[in-house]
Protein backbone atom coordinates (compact mmCIF):
# COMPACT_ATOMS: atom_id res chain seq x y z
CA UNK A 1 0.00 0.00 0.00
CA UNK A 2 2.81 2.37 1.02
CA UNK A 3 4.65 1.54 -2.24
CA UNK A 4 1.51 2.35 -4.22
CA UNK A 5 1.16 5.72 -2.45
CA UNK A 6 4.86 6.45 -3.05
CA UNK A 7 4.58 5.65 -6.76
CA UNK A 8 1.42 7.77 -7.00
CA UNK A 9 3.26 10.65 -5.30
CA UNK A 10 6.22 10.24 -7.69
CA UNK A 11 3.88 10.20 -10.68
CA UNK A 12 2.12 13.32 -9.45
CA UNK A 13 5.46 15.06 -8.84
CA UNK A 14 6.55 14.11 -12.36
CA UNK A 15 3.31 15.41 -13.88
CA UNK A 16 3.52 18.60 -11.82
CA UNK A 17 7.12 19.06 -13.02
CA UNK A 18 6.02 18.70 -16.63
CA UNK A 19 3.14 21.11 -16.02
CA UNK A 20 5.56 23.63 -14.52
CA UNK A 21 7.93 23.39 -17.47
CA UNK A 22 5.07 23.86 -19.92
CA UNK A 23 3.45 26.72 -18.05
CA UNK A 24 6.78 28.53 -17.60
CA UNK A 25 7.45 28.08 -21.32
CA UNK A 26 3.98 29.38 -22.14
CA UNK A 27 4.51 32.36 -19.86
CA UNK A 28 7.80 33.10 -21.55
CA UNK A 29 6.21 32.74 -24.98
CA UNK A 30 3.38 35.08 -23.96
CA UNK A 31 5.71 37.70 -22.49
CA UNK A 32 8.01 37.41 -25.56
CA UNK A 33 5.03 38.12 -27.78
CA UNK A 34 3.92 41.03 -25.59
CA UNK A 35 7.42 42.52 -25.73
CA UNK A 36 7.58 42.05 -29.51
CA UNK A 37 4.27 43.81 -30.15
CA UNK A 38 5.41 46.79 -28.08
CA UNK A 39 8.49 47.29 -30.28
CA UNK A 40 6.82 49.47 -32.98
CA UNK A 41 4.98 51.47 -30.29
CA UNK A 42 8.20 52.10 -28.36
CA UNK A 43 10.05 53.04 -31.56
CA UNK A 44 7.32 55.54 -32.42
CA UNK A 45 7.33 56.98 -28.89
CA UNK A 46 11.13 57.35 -28.84
CA UNK A 47 11.00 59.15 -32.18
CA UNK A 48 8.21 61.46 -30.99
CA UNK A 49 10.09 62.40 -27.82
CA UNK A 50 13.15 62.94 -30.01
CA UNK A 51 11.41 65.35 -32.42
CA UNK A 52 9.79 67.16 -29.50
CA UNK A 53 13.15 67.66 -27.79
CA UNK A 54 14.86 68.80 -30.98
CA UNK A 55 11.97 70.96 -32.23
CA UNK A 56 13.93 74.18 -31.68
CA UNK A 57 17.34 72.95 -32.77
CA UNK A 58 16.44 71.11 -35.98
CA UNK A 59 14.59 71.91 -39.17
CA UNK A 60 11.15 70.60 -40.14
CA UNK A 61 12.82 68.62 -42.94
CA UNK A 62 15.23 66.92 -40.54
CA UNK A 63 12.43 65.92 -38.21
CA UNK A 64 10.34 64.83 -41.21
CA UNK A 65 13.16 62.55 -42.36
CA UNK A 66 13.43 61.00 -38.91
CA UNK A 67 9.67 60.39 -38.67
CA UNK A 68 9.52 59.11 -42.24
CA UNK A 69 12.01 56.42 -41.34
CA UNK A 70 9.99 55.43 -38.26
CA UNK A 71 6.47 55.67 -39.71
CA UNK A 72 7.27 53.57 -42.79
CA UNK A 73 8.85 50.98 -40.50
CA UNK A 74 6.25 50.86 -37.72
CA UNK A 75 2.91 51.44 -39.51
CA UNK A 76 1.24 49.06 -41.94
CA UNK A 77 0.04 51.90 -44.17
CA UNK A 78 -1.08 49.54 -46.95
CA UNK A 79 -3.54 47.87 -44.61
CA UNK A 80 -4.56 51.20 -43.07
CA UNK A 81 -5.27 52.60 -46.55
CA UNK A 82 -7.34 49.54 -47.41
CA UNK A 83 -9.49 50.03 -44.29
CA UNK A 84 -9.68 53.81 -44.59
CA UNK A 85 -10.94 53.68 -48.19
CA UNK A 86 -13.41 50.90 -47.34
CA UNK A 87 -15.33 49.77 -50.43
CA UNK A 88 -13.58 52.26 -52.75
CA UNK A 89 -10.26 50.44 -52.35
CA UNK A 90 -11.34 47.59 -54.63
CA UNK A 91 -12.20 49.96 -57.47
CA UNK A 92 -8.66 51.41 -57.63
CA UNK A 93 -5.88 50.12 -59.87
CA UNK A 94 -2.48 49.12 -58.43
CA UNK A 95 -0.75 52.39 -59.26
CA UNK A 96 -3.52 54.51 -57.69
CA UNK A 97 -3.42 52.29 -54.60
CA UNK A 98 0.35 52.73 -54.25
CA UNK A 99 0.11 56.48 -54.83
CA UNK A 100 -2.57 56.69 -52.15
CA UNK A 101 -0.43 54.73 -49.67
CA UNK A 102 2.51 57.10 -50.29
CA UNK A 103 0.27 60.15 -49.92
CA UNK A 104 -1.27 58.80 -46.73
CA UNK A 105 2.23 58.26 -45.31
CA UNK A 106 3.15 61.86 -46.16
CA UNK A 107 0.04 63.13 -44.40
CA UNK A 108 0.71 61.01 -41.29
CA UNK A 109 4.37 62.08 -41.08
CA UNK A 110 3.57 65.78 -41.65
CA UNK A 111 0.86 65.63 -38.98
CA UNK A 112 3.19 64.10 -36.38
CA UNK A 113 6.04 66.54 -37.13
CA UNK A 114 3.66 69.50 -37.02
CA UNK A 115 1.90 68.49 -33.82
CA UNK A 116 4.77 67.22 -31.66
CA UNK A 117 6.67 70.48 -31.88
CA UNK A 118 7.69 71.31 -28.31
CA UNK A 119 8.89 69.47 -25.23
CA UNK A 120 7.83 70.02 -21.63
CA UNK A 121 8.95 66.87 -19.80
CA UNK A 122 6.33 64.67 -21.44
CA UNK A 123 6.90 60.93 -21.36
CA UNK A 124 5.09 57.80 -22.55
CA UNK A 125 4.15 55.05 -20.12
CA UNK A 126 3.20 51.49 -21.08
CA UNK A 127 0.00 50.30 -19.37
CA UNK A 128 -1.18 46.92 -20.69
CA UNK A 129 -1.96 44.71 -23.69
CA UNK A 130 -5.45 43.43 -24.54
CA UNK A 131 -6.20 40.78 -27.18
CA UNK A 132 -8.61 41.57 -30.02
CA UNK A 133 -9.95 39.40 -32.86
CA UNK A 134 -7.77 37.74 -35.56
CA UNK A 135 -4.38 38.13 -33.85
CA UNK A 136 -4.81 41.85 -33.36
CA UNK A 137 -3.86 43.38 -30.02
CA UNK A 138 -4.48 46.68 -28.30
CA UNK A 139 -1.34 48.14 -26.71
CA UNK A 140 -2.40 50.67 -24.08
CA UNK A 141 -0.09 53.54 -23.15
CA UNK A 142 -0.40 57.09 -21.90
CA UNK A 143 1.40 60.35 -22.41
CA UNK A 144 2.09 61.97 -19.07
CA UNK A 145 2.41 65.74 -19.00
CA UNK A 146 3.80 68.05 -16.35
CA UNK A 147 0.93 70.53 -16.15
CA UNK A 148 -1.97 68.63 -17.61
CA UNK A 149 -3.94 65.40 -17.37
CA UNK A 150 -2.37 62.35 -19.03
CA UNK A 151 -3.51 61.56 -22.58
CA UNK A 152 -4.39 57.97 -23.33
CA UNK A 153 -2.62 56.65 -26.46
CA UNK A 154 -3.71 53.16 -27.48
CA UNK A 155 -2.41 51.32 -30.53
CA UNK A 156 -3.92 48.45 -32.47
CA UNK A 157 -1.07 46.24 -33.64
CA UNK A 158 -1.06 43.24 -35.95
CA UNK A 159 1.59 40.73 -36.92
CA UNK A 160 2.48 40.93 -40.58
CA UNK A 161 5.03 38.37 -41.86
CA UNK A 162 6.57 38.00 -38.41
CA UNK A 163 6.73 41.75 -37.77
CA UNK A 164 4.39 43.67 -35.53
CA UNK A 165 3.01 46.85 -37.07
CA UNK A 166 0.68 49.60 -35.92
CA UNK A 167 -2.64 49.71 -37.77
CA UNK A 168 -4.50 52.29 -35.69
CA UNK A 169 -3.88 55.00 -33.11
CA UNK A 170 -6.58 55.82 -30.54
CA UNK A 171 -6.00 59.04 -28.60
CA UNK A 172 -8.29 59.61 -25.60
CA UNK A 173 -10.86 57.26 -27.10
CA UNK A 174 -10.80 58.80 -30.58
CA UNK A 175 -9.80 56.24 -33.18
CA UNK A 176 -7.90 57.94 -35.98
CA UNK A 177 -8.62 55.10 -38.39
CA UNK A 178 -12.41 55.18 -38.04
CA UNK A 179 -12.39 58.98 -38.01
CA UNK A 180 -10.53 59.10 -41.33
CA UNK A 181 -12.60 56.26 -42.75
CA UNK A 182 -15.83 58.20 -42.10
CA UNK A 183 -14.37 61.46 -43.38
CA UNK A 184 -12.83 60.01 -46.53
CA UNK A 185 -15.91 58.04 -47.54
CA UNK A 186 -18.01 61.15 -47.04
CA UNK A 187 -15.71 63.21 -49.29
CA UNK A 188 -15.58 60.46 -51.94
CA UNK A 189 -19.39 60.15 -51.89
CA UNK A 190 -20.02 63.89 -52.21
CA UNK A 191 -17.07 65.08 -54.30
CA UNK A 192 -15.32 62.03 -55.74
CA UNK A 193 -11.96 60.31 -55.19
CA UNK A 194 -9.87 62.97 -56.95
CA UNK A 195 -11.29 65.63 -54.60
CA UNK A 196 -10.13 63.52 -51.65
CA UNK A 197 -6.61 63.35 -53.10
CA UNK A 198 -6.58 67.13 -53.68
CA UNK A 199 -7.81 67.72 -50.11
CA UNK A 200 -5.11 65.47 -48.68
CA UNK A 201 -2.42 67.27 -50.71
CA UNK A 202 -3.76 70.60 -49.46
CA UNK A 203 -3.61 69.36 -45.85
CA UNK A 204 -0.02 68.25 -46.30
CA UNK A 205 0.86 71.65 -47.70
CA UNK A 206 -0.93 73.43 -44.80
CA UNK A 207 1.09 71.38 -42.30
CA UNK A 208 4.44 72.57 -43.70
CA UNK A 209 6.15 75.41 -41.81
CA UNK A 210 5.22 78.86 -43.13
Amino acid sequence: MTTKINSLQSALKFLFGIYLIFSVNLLYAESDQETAMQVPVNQLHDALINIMKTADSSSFEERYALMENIITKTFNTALISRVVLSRYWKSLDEKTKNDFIALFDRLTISTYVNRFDSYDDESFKFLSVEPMKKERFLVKTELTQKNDDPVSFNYIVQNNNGEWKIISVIANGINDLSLKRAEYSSVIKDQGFSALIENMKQKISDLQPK
Partner: protein
Amino acid sequence: MTGSHLFSLSKHLILICILSVATGCATTQTPDSTAGNSDDIESANRVFFNVNETLDKHLMKPIAETYVDMTPKVVRTSVTNFFDNLKYLNVIFNDFLQGKFTQGVNDSLRFLFNSTLGIGGIFDVASNDMNLAKNEEDFGQTLATWGFDEGSYLYIPLMGPNTVRDVTDQVPSTFLNPFFYVTSTVLFPISALDVINKRANLLEASNLRDEAAIDPYAFTREAFLQQRDYLIYDGNPPVAGYDDIFTEAEEESGGVLVIE
Protein backbone atom coordinates in the same frame (compact mmCIF):
# COMPACT_ATOMS: atom_id res chain seq x y z
CA MET B 1 -41.25 78.22 -9.93
CA THR B 2 -41.55 81.39 -12.00
CA GLY B 3 -43.09 81.74 -15.43
CA SER B 4 -39.67 82.11 -17.06
CA HIS B 5 -38.56 78.81 -15.51
CA LEU B 6 -41.64 77.06 -16.83
CA PHE B 7 -40.99 78.57 -20.23
CA SER B 8 -37.36 77.42 -20.14
CA LEU B 9 -38.39 73.89 -19.14
CA SER B 10 -41.18 73.63 -21.70
CA LYS B 11 -38.74 74.90 -24.35
CA HIS B 12 -36.42 71.98 -23.60
CA LEU B 13 -39.24 69.46 -23.54
CA ILE B 14 -40.67 70.75 -26.82
CA LEU B 15 -37.22 70.56 -28.38
CA ILE B 16 -36.83 66.95 -27.27
CA CYS B 17 -40.32 66.02 -28.52
CA ILE B 18 -39.73 67.66 -31.91
CA LEU B 19 -36.38 65.95 -32.26
CA SER B 20 -37.79 62.58 -31.25
CA VAL B 21 -40.58 62.87 -33.81
CA ALA B 22 -38.20 64.14 -36.48
CA THR B 23 -35.68 61.40 -35.92
CA GLY B 24 -38.43 58.80 -35.51
CA CYS B 25 -39.60 59.63 -39.03
CA ALA B 26 -36.08 59.91 -40.32
CA THR B 27 -35.06 56.43 -39.21
CA THR B 28 -37.35 54.93 -41.84
CA GLN B 29 -35.15 56.44 -44.54
CA THR B 30 -32.50 54.38 -46.24
CA PRO B 31 -29.18 54.80 -44.45
CA ASP B 32 -26.54 56.60 -46.48
CA SER B 33 -23.72 54.69 -48.05
CA THR B 34 -20.83 56.30 -46.21
CA ALA B 35 -18.67 54.43 -43.69
CA GLY B 36 -18.78 55.42 -40.04
CA ASN B 37 -21.60 56.00 -37.60
CA SER B 38 -25.10 56.19 -39.03
CA ASP B 39 -26.49 59.66 -39.59
CA ASP B 40 -30.18 59.40 -40.43
CA ILE B 41 -30.85 63.10 -40.80
CA GLU B 42 -27.51 64.08 -42.28
CA SER B 43 -28.86 66.67 -44.70
CA ALA B 44 -30.67 68.59 -41.93
CA ASN B 45 -27.69 68.17 -39.60
CA ARG B 46 -25.34 69.57 -42.24
CA VAL B 47 -27.53 72.66 -42.66
CA PHE B 48 -27.45 73.34 -38.91
CA PHE B 49 -23.73 72.58 -38.83
CA ASN B 50 -23.06 75.18 -41.53
CA VAL B 51 -25.20 77.76 -39.73
CA ASN B 52 -23.31 77.14 -36.49
CA GLU B 53 -19.94 77.20 -38.21
CA THR B 54 -20.72 80.57 -39.82
CA LEU B 55 -21.98 81.97 -36.54
CA ASP B 56 -18.95 80.60 -34.76
CA LYS B 57 -16.43 81.88 -37.29
CA HIS B 58 -17.79 85.43 -37.32
CA LEU B 59 -18.99 85.83 -33.75
CA MET B 60 -18.22 83.22 -31.09
CA LYS B 61 -14.65 82.33 -32.01
CA PRO B 62 -13.40 85.94 -32.29
CA ILE B 63 -15.07 86.79 -28.93
CA ALA B 64 -13.52 83.70 -27.30
CA GLU B 65 -10.09 84.56 -28.74
CA THR B 66 -10.33 88.14 -27.44
CA TYR B 67 -11.40 86.79 -24.04
CA VAL B 68 -8.34 84.49 -23.97
CA ASP B 69 -6.06 87.39 -24.95
CA MET B 70 -7.48 89.65 -22.25
CA THR B 71 -7.70 87.29 -19.27
CA PRO B 72 -4.86 85.42 -17.57
CA LYS B 73 -5.08 81.62 -17.60
CA VAL B 74 -5.54 81.51 -13.82
CA VAL B 75 -8.69 83.64 -14.12
CA ARG B 76 -10.07 81.46 -16.90
CA THR B 77 -9.39 78.36 -14.82
CA SER B 78 -11.34 79.89 -11.92
CA VAL B 79 -14.23 80.78 -14.23
CA THR B 80 -14.25 77.19 -15.54
CA ASN B 81 -14.12 75.83 -11.97
CA PHE B 82 -17.02 78.05 -10.92
CA PHE B 83 -19.35 76.94 -13.75
CA ASP B 84 -18.26 73.29 -13.50
CA ASN B 85 -19.11 73.34 -9.80
CA LEU B 86 -22.57 74.76 -10.49
CA LYS B 87 -23.21 71.90 -12.88
CA TYR B 88 -21.83 69.26 -10.52
CA LEU B 89 -25.13 68.38 -8.81
CA ASN B 90 -26.12 66.79 -12.13
CA VAL B 91 -22.92 64.70 -12.05
CA ILE B 92 -23.73 63.50 -8.50
CA PHE B 93 -27.34 62.73 -9.48
CA ASN B 94 -26.15 60.61 -12.40
CA ASP B 95 -23.44 58.87 -10.32
CA PHE B 96 -26.20 57.44 -8.14
CA LEU B 97 -28.52 56.67 -11.07
CA GLN B 98 -25.69 54.62 -12.57
CA GLY B 99 -25.11 52.78 -9.29
CA LYS B 100 -21.70 54.35 -8.74
CA PHE B 101 -22.22 54.88 -5.02
CA THR B 102 -18.61 55.42 -3.92
CA GLN B 103 -18.08 57.88 -6.77
CA GLY B 104 -21.38 59.55 -5.82
CA VAL B 105 -20.23 60.04 -2.23
CA ASN B 106 -16.81 61.32 -3.37
CA ASP B 107 -18.44 63.69 -5.85
CA SER B 108 -20.81 64.96 -3.13
CA LEU B 109 -17.79 65.68 -0.91
CA ARG B 110 -16.09 67.32 -3.87
CA PHE B 111 -19.10 69.60 -4.42
CA LEU B 112 -19.28 70.39 -0.69
CA PHE B 113 -15.58 71.25 -0.32
CA ASN B 114 -15.34 73.22 -3.56
CA SER B 115 -18.51 75.20 -2.75
CA THR B 116 -17.26 76.13 0.73
CA LEU B 117 -13.45 75.99 1.01
CA GLY B 118 -13.16 76.65 -2.71
CA ILE B 119 -15.25 79.85 -2.34
CA GLY B 120 -18.30 79.02 -4.40
CA GLY B 121 -16.33 76.67 -6.63
CA ILE B 122 -13.78 79.23 -7.84
CA PHE B 123 -10.92 77.07 -6.55
CA ASP B 124 -10.83 73.34 -7.17
CA VAL B 125 -9.51 72.41 -3.71
CA ALA B 126 -11.01 68.92 -3.99
CA SER B 127 -8.77 67.97 -6.96
CA ASN B 128 -5.70 69.84 -5.79
CA ASP B 129 -5.62 69.06 -2.08
CA MET B 130 -7.99 66.20 -1.39
CA ASN B 131 -7.45 63.79 -4.26
CA LEU B 132 -11.12 63.95 -5.21
CA ALA B 133 -10.85 63.92 -8.99
CA LYS B 134 -13.47 65.51 -11.22
CA ASN B 135 -15.83 63.07 -12.97
CA GLU B 136 -17.90 63.51 -16.08
CA GLU B 137 -21.39 62.02 -15.86
CA ASP B 138 -24.66 63.09 -17.42
CA PHE B 139 -28.11 61.71 -18.09
CA GLY B 140 -27.18 60.51 -21.58
CA GLN B 141 -24.46 58.32 -20.05
CA THR B 142 -26.95 57.09 -17.45
CA LEU B 143 -29.42 56.06 -20.17
CA ALA B 144 -26.56 54.32 -22.00
CA THR B 145 -25.67 52.30 -18.89
CA TRP B 146 -29.36 51.38 -18.60
CA GLY B 147 -29.19 49.95 -22.12
CA PHE B 148 -30.66 52.75 -24.26
CA ASP B 149 -29.19 53.16 -27.75
CA GLU B 150 -27.92 56.58 -28.73
CA GLY B 151 -30.60 57.04 -31.40
CA SER B 152 -30.00 59.40 -34.28
CA TYR B 153 -27.09 61.78 -34.36
CA LEU B 154 -28.25 65.39 -34.07
CA TYR B 155 -26.49 68.61 -34.81
CA ILE B 156 -28.47 71.22 -32.88
CA PRO B 157 -28.24 74.94 -33.70
CA LEU B 158 -26.25 76.81 -31.02
CA MET B 159 -25.70 73.60 -29.03
CA GLY B 160 -23.62 71.54 -31.42
CA PRO B 161 -23.28 67.76 -31.73
CA ASN B 162 -25.67 65.54 -29.78
CA THR B 163 -27.82 62.42 -30.02
CA VAL B 164 -31.49 61.76 -29.26
CA ARG B 165 -30.47 59.89 -26.10
CA ASP B 166 -27.93 62.43 -24.90
CA VAL B 167 -30.04 65.53 -25.47
CA THR B 168 -32.35 64.36 -22.64
CA ASP B 169 -29.65 65.55 -20.25
CA GLN B 170 -31.02 69.06 -20.82
CA VAL B 171 -33.82 68.31 -18.35
CA PRO B 172 -31.85 67.23 -15.22
CA SER B 173 -28.95 69.55 -15.97
CA THR B 174 -31.36 72.52 -16.11
CA PHE B 175 -33.22 71.53 -12.93
CA LEU B 176 -30.09 70.72 -10.97
CA ASN B 177 -28.26 73.92 -11.81
CA PRO B 178 -28.73 76.31 -8.85
CA PHE B 179 -28.94 79.23 -11.31
CA PHE B 180 -32.26 77.86 -12.54
CA TYR B 181 -33.81 78.93 -9.23
CA VAL B 182 -32.43 82.47 -9.31
CA THR B 183 -34.25 85.26 -11.10
CA SER B 184 -32.06 88.26 -11.66
CA THR B 185 -30.83 90.38 -14.53
CA VAL B 186 -27.29 89.66 -13.35
CA LEU B 187 -27.75 86.13 -14.76
CA PHE B 188 -27.52 87.39 -18.34
CA PRO B 189 -23.87 88.56 -18.22
CA ILE B 190 -22.97 85.51 -16.08
CA SER B 191 -24.57 83.13 -18.58
CA ALA B 192 -22.79 84.97 -21.41
CA LEU B 193 -19.49 84.51 -19.57
CA ASP B 194 -20.25 80.78 -19.26
CA VAL B 195 -20.82 80.50 -23.02
CA ILE B 196 -17.70 82.51 -23.93
CA ASN B 197 -15.53 80.62 -21.45
CA LYS B 198 -16.84 77.28 -22.72
CA ARG B 199 -16.00 78.29 -26.30
CA ALA B 200 -12.56 79.49 -25.17
CA ASN B 201 -11.89 76.08 -23.61
CA LEU B 202 -12.72 74.48 -26.95
CA LEU B 203 -10.38 76.71 -29.00
CA GLU B 204 -7.52 74.24 -28.97
CA ALA B 205 -9.75 71.34 -29.98
CA SER B 206 -11.49 73.31 -32.73
CA ASN B 207 -8.19 74.58 -34.11
CA LEU B 208 -6.89 71.02 -34.13
CA ARG B 209 -10.01 69.91 -35.98
CA ASP B 210 -9.68 72.69 -38.57
CA GLU B 211 -6.06 71.70 -39.06
CA ALA B 212 -6.75 67.98 -39.45
CA ALA B 213 -10.23 67.64 -40.90
CA ILE B 214 -10.89 67.10 -44.58
CA ASP B 215 -14.64 66.97 -43.97
CA PRO B 216 -15.18 68.97 -40.73
CA TYR B 217 -18.80 67.79 -40.44
CA ALA B 218 -17.93 64.06 -40.57
CA PHE B 219 -14.88 64.66 -38.35
CA THR B 220 -17.00 66.39 -35.69
CA ARG B 221 -19.66 63.67 -35.76
CA GLU B 222 -17.18 60.78 -35.47
CA ALA B 223 -15.07 62.48 -32.81
CA PHE B 224 -18.17 63.38 -30.78
CA LEU B 225 -19.70 59.88 -30.92
CA GLN B 226 -16.40 58.19 -30.09
CA GLN B 227 -15.79 60.61 -27.24
CA ARG B 228 -19.27 59.80 -25.87
CA ASP B 229 -18.46 56.08 -25.91
CA TYR B 230 -15.22 56.79 -24.12
CA LEU B 231 -17.10 58.69 -21.39
CA ILE B 232 -19.86 56.08 -21.08
CA TYR B 233 -17.22 53.42 -20.39
CA ASP B 234 -15.25 55.76 -18.12
CA GLY B 235 -12.24 55.83 -20.42
CA ASN B 236 -12.16 52.08 -20.95
CA PRO B 237 -14.47 51.09 -23.84
CA PRO B 238 -14.56 47.37 -24.76
CA VAL B 239 -11.89 46.49 -27.34
CA ALA B 240 -14.48 44.57 -29.41
CA GLY B 241 -15.76 47.93 -30.69
CA TYR B 242 -12.40 48.61 -32.35
CA ASP B 243 -12.67 45.36 -34.34
CA ASP B 244 -15.76 46.47 -36.26
CA ILE B 245 -14.01 48.40 -39.03
CA PHE B 246 -11.62 45.51 -39.66
CA THR B 247 -14.42 42.97 -39.65
CA GLU B 248 -16.25 44.98 -42.32
CA ALA B 249 -13.13 45.21 -44.45
CA GLU B 250 -12.45 41.50 -43.92
CA GLU B 251 -15.95 40.61 -45.08
CA GLU B 252 -15.50 42.77 -48.17
CA SER B 253 -12.22 41.05 -49.01
CA GLY B 254 -13.40 37.48 -48.32
CA GLY B 255 -12.29 37.09 -44.71
CA VAL B 256 -8.63 37.96 -45.17
CA LEU B 257 -7.18 41.34 -44.35
CA VAL B 258 -3.45 41.08 -44.81
CA ILE B 259 -1.74 43.42 -47.18
CA GLU B 260 1.97 42.97 -47.72
